[in-house]
């Protein structure tokens, strides 16, 4: 199955059946655009020598925003992987904070300049600090869910990763333990087909990551990751069921990586030119707008206004962040250990 096979046109009535209000659809569009424009800005800053490193989720915005909107912000715990700018924006990260992070500024709330960009963290948004090591976070959310279950807290723990991460032992150990204890965890795989240069076929002999779910006795679903609405409508019921005690879910969103792995990589060296061109034509943001226009949900002027607003926000955020203070070098010595417990 490819992404296009799972995608079906939906009528305005169908959308309303899935309880997405016009405000939610508008929010989806805005978040996807914001994510893309921020990343474009970051990449420009990188090419100008002003941002050291960029790792982006371009092409995966629908998968990210659709899933992020299914969570309860400030209640549910999340361990989004490094491409998930879209998830972070939905959870409440502002464009200014995103730019502080991209520029490794002193006040970057994710790591205060201590980590590479896109290694998320936020206490208020319940985002666990992320490393560059892939799949480790899948076990952390299992621990979070176990703790919440012990305390009878009605939270869901969400962790995302790429399909490349599913080769690691931690992926398997996490699914196994979560399934044994029926923990409220959503394992969310954004399958973009590539682990840097390695096509998925080099890492697994199965067509879908979810084919592994049966081995662990875990519920699963696969969804077109280019369709934000479909993603929301798949993840949201899983979140609700997990919260209700149904146990964990493995959800695979089929999407693609529009850009290279990172600012330090050039995918033209290993990807066929036609493939890149083909995917570029199926940009999830353009598809979303086309369908909204087709369904006449909003006048085109409204969508244009959203785009213009995002453009202004991103430029302003970048300009503002650029003038923010850098970390003091000596600050590097602090907080190796937390000094006090909160009891």
């Amino acid at each position, binding site marked *: 199955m490819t992404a296009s096979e799972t995608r079906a046109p939906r009528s305005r009535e169908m959308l309303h059946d899935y309880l997405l209000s016009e405000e939610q659809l508008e929010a989806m569009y805005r978040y996807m655009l914001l994510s893309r424009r921020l990343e474009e800005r970051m990449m420009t800053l990188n090419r100008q020598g002003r941002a050291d490193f960029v790792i982006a989720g371009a092409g995966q915005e629908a998968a990210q925003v659709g899933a992020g909107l299914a969570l309860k912000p400030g209640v549910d715990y999340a361990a989004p992987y490094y491409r998930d700018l879209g998830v972070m924006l939905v959870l409440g990260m502002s464009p200014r904070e995103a730019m502080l992070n991209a520029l490794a500024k002193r006040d970057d709330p994710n790591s*205060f300049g201590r980590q590479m960009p896109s290694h998320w963290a936020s206490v208020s948004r319940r985002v666990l600090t992320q*490393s560059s090591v892939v799949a480790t976070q899948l*076990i952390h959310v*299992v621990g*979070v869910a176990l703790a919440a279950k012990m305390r009878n807290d009605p939270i869901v723990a969400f962790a995302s990763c790429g399909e490349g991460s599913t080769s690691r*032992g*931690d992926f398997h150990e996490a699914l196994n333990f979560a399934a*044994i204890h029926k923990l409220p965890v959503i394992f969310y795989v954004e399958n973009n087909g590539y682990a840097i240069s390695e096509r998925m076929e080099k890492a697994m002999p199965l067509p879908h990551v979810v084919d592994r779910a049966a081995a662990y006795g875990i519920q699963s679903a696969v969804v077109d990751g280019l369709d934000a609405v479909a993603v929301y409508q798949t993840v949201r019921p899983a979140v609700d069921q997990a919260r209700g005690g149904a146990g964990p879910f493995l959800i695979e969103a089929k999407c693609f990586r529009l850009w290279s792995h990172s600012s330090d990589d050039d995918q033209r060296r290993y990807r066929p030119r036609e493939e890149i061109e083909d995917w570029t034509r199926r940009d999830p943001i353009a598809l979303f707008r086309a369908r909204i226009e087709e369904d006449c949900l909003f006048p085109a002027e409204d969508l244009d206004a959203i785009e213009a607003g995002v453009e202004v926000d991103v430029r302003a955020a970048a300009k503002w962040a650029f003038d923010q203070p850098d970390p003091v070098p000596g600050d590097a010595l602090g907080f190796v250990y937390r000094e006090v*417990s909160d009891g």
Partner: protein
Amino acid sequence: MAEVNVLEAVRTTLDEALAADDRVFLLGEDLEAGGVFRATDGLAEKYPGRIIDTPLAESSIIGIAIGAAHYGQRPVAEIQFADFIHAGFDQLCSEASRWSYRTRGEQYLPMVVRTPWGGGVHGGQHHSQSIEAYYAHMPGLKVVAPSFPADYCSLLKAAIADPNPVLFLEHKRTYRLIRQELEGAPAEGRIGRARITRYGDDLTIIAYGFMLHESLAAAGELAGEGIECTVVDVLTLNPLDEEAVLEAVRATGKALIVHEDTLTGGLGGEIAAIIAEHAFEDLDAPVRRLAGPDIPPMPFHHDMEAFFLPDRAKIAAAARDLAAY
């Protein structure tokens, strides 16, 4: 007064921690049945739902403890033998030890990983090893290796109360061998403090775990020969109590560092470097290390195992030689 051995000290302290704080829970292999060393005997019945048997997957045992600690619980994970902890190395090295650092202390992990270590128990290659050097090399992960029951109590208690991840090493050989009256022992331990357990002005022996006991035995023997040793129980391997080590070495000018880990890259090298850097002008002899030879530790046969391990006789011999220098 009643004496307790190390296992009883550990079990009692876990029991007390579970009773005192609902957030404390234990996870690991075979814990519900009491654990292979019986350290959790009876706890599963007493605290239903808080002693959790896990699959045989060390990375997840540690990773789950990370997530639960992040959430606000106080997990105490057990790795059945230290020799098997390396499957969880990534979770300790890449995640747990950096959690606070990455967020400037906003996120932190009040978690403990207990694990039995050390040789002299005929455990062969994979039930005898000293793993401390790998893990003491991770800023952000505290590593504790007590020697006496009272310290097992007070430091395990401190480890559970600590807002940082603590690797708590329990020397298998001490489990049933070392007994102590706990009456009068301080209830609270301070992680990061070494203790000078014996004063003498001829030379200073620095050791931890079971080697501390062998060093004390050697010191006792040497006292009969007129050689008086200062003996330092390192107790916390990371962060090291540099001041206590330096104070003890400055007092005698001669240092003998003993550990059963293999020599190269062992903690003795770090301690020797600290002494050389900060106490050079107080040295009266070259710093000496007595350690396991650089072979994969450790051979199974009794005689080969004894050949591998430092013991009181080898310590006494090295000390005599150093005293005479």
